């Protein structure tokens, strides 16, 4: 299972010429291992743009994870604890909408971004310019509301202790104090699970930046790798393959670390989704 990752780490120590002559053993240890690739990435000495990609990745991950969890938590609480007219139908229609696989929404979203009124040179009818394509907007605006997450939070809150909340209300807690200081700590497992799953997901997401932006300065780490791979399609040769592999490993490392640290939450959360789903 881990073999591909180990293999790639080893390959990252080759320089691009030596890579072509690597032995075809299972574990190709390079004759002249070089830290060049990893050094390039980690210390950004020869390529300051790499820092930009890393920064974009980090900001996007933090932002999207934070907003997603926040929205899921608040909306989940609302659907779980607060009664209002139309709650049932609204909830179920949201859920039904989620049956549609997300990837097929890409094309309409792309057009919407391109035809956004008053953005990027567009007029009222969204004609004329590039709209919100190739800006920070698609990177930071898309994907904040996730019905499955809201559903999950709702289920766990419903299964949780009502007495604590009632007690807090008697003590005069307002709504925001209630949810953030009382309910949130109880729901830490679910929130942690959501944060981790979404965090890793956004960090690895190459799709959105790849298709919705084209300028270098908007790329994230994952989409940068994707571009190199795509460009190679034309020439059918990636110039510095070990560098690409090394970048892939660097992309993977934070996810693996986070996973190791929090695997308990992930496994529990996954099981909970399955049993309740």
């Amino acid at each position, binding site marked *: 299972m881990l073999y591909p990752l180990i293999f790639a780490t080893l390959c990252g120590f080759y320089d691009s010429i030596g890579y072509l002559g690597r032995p075809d053993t299972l574990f190709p240890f390079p004759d002249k291992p070089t830290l060049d690739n990893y050094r390039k990435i980690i210390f950004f000495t020869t390529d300051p743009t790499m820092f930009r990609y890393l920064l974009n990745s980090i900001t996007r991950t933090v932002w999207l994870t934070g907003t997603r969890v926040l929205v899921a938590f608040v909306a989940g609480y609302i659907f779980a604890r607060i*009664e209002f007219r139309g709650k049932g139908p609204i909830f179920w229609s949201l859920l039904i909408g989620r049956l549609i696989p997300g990837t097929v929404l890409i*094309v*309409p979203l792309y057009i919407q971004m391109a035809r956004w009124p008053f953005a990027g040179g567009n007029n009222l009818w969204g004609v004329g310019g590039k709209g919100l394509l190739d800006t920070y907007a698609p990177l930071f605006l898309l994907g904040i*509301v996730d019905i499955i997450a809201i559903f999950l939070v709702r289920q766990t809150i419903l299964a949780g202790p009502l007495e604590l909340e009632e007690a807090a209300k008697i003590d005069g807690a307002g709504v925001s104090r209630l949810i953030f200081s009382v309910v949130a700590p109880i729901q830490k497992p679910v929130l942690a699970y959501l944060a981790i799953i979404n965090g890793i997901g956004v960090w690895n997401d*190459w799709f959105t930046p790849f298709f919705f932006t084209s300028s270098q300065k908007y790329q994230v780490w994952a989409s940068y790798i994707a571009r190199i791979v795509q460009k190679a399609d034309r020439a059918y040769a990636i110039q510095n393959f070990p560098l690409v592999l090394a970048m892939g490993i660097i992309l993977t490392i934070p*996810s693996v670390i986070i*996973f190791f640290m929090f695997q308990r939450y992930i496994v529990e959360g996954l099981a909970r989704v399955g049993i309740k789903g």
Partner: protein
Amino acid sequence: MPDKKTFSPLKQRERKVAYAILTVILIYYFIFSAFPTFFGVVLAFLDWTNVTAFPKWNWLGNFYKYFKSSFYRSALFRQMYIGTLCAGTTMLIAFFVALLLNMRIRGRGVFRTIWYIPAVTAGVATTQIFVSIMDPNTGPITGLLRFFGHGPIQWQFSTFWMVVWILIFNLWGSLGPTAVLWLAGLQSIDQQLYEAAAIDGANWWRSLLHVTLPGIRPIAVYALVVGFSGSVTVYEPVMFISRGGPWGTTNVAMYQLVTDAFYDFNLGMAGTNAMILTIVALIFALLNYKIMKGND
């Protein structure tokens, strides 16, 4: 449901806050989820080949083209069969992996972790690792083949092998989470049922059939529905390893969609493609659900 008739003043304020927040969320959802869905459906009926040009209404023209041309038909077919192949094998193998992981061996937590790690990797990076591994010139697979006296296999020129590699890649990434899912199901089965079966003289195989399988029915429903409808959107290995395979023979509908939309700017057909894929995914989900529920 909890009794809501007490605490009246707070109820009013709560409701206002709820409405306010929900309105924002619903507006967002409408702009970025609901509207694109409708728009996507409309797209399927348009002839639109350039983002800057104006679309033309095309009635069922796109659909006609889709089903008439063997090009699109086969893309859809490939998506189906590759997707089902991946989903089916993943679920089957993952079940046995889960059985293994369920055994009380020391260090099974570590095993569980190892199986799950591929799922947190990024497809864009891991596909390249696979490309490197299967490199016919200097890849380790070739080395293994050489060890057994066999020459290198040129995978890129064989549809069969490309599908195999797509399957392997998919398995590598999906076995972990699927196995964890099965594991959760296995562990939810009451141990006493096993003991009762043992008393009745059931061996390993029979207890598997009569205790385990019925016990994991609920999880199985979820796993099958999610697994199969998720399989409809297999495209990463196609995009980054086979790139549509030897001369378009692993061109799955999803990949064609991306190509249509972002390289050829044939937005109408992409919309049609998307809509058909969605319908198929829904049908799959419904079928699976019916089958699993119907067995009761």
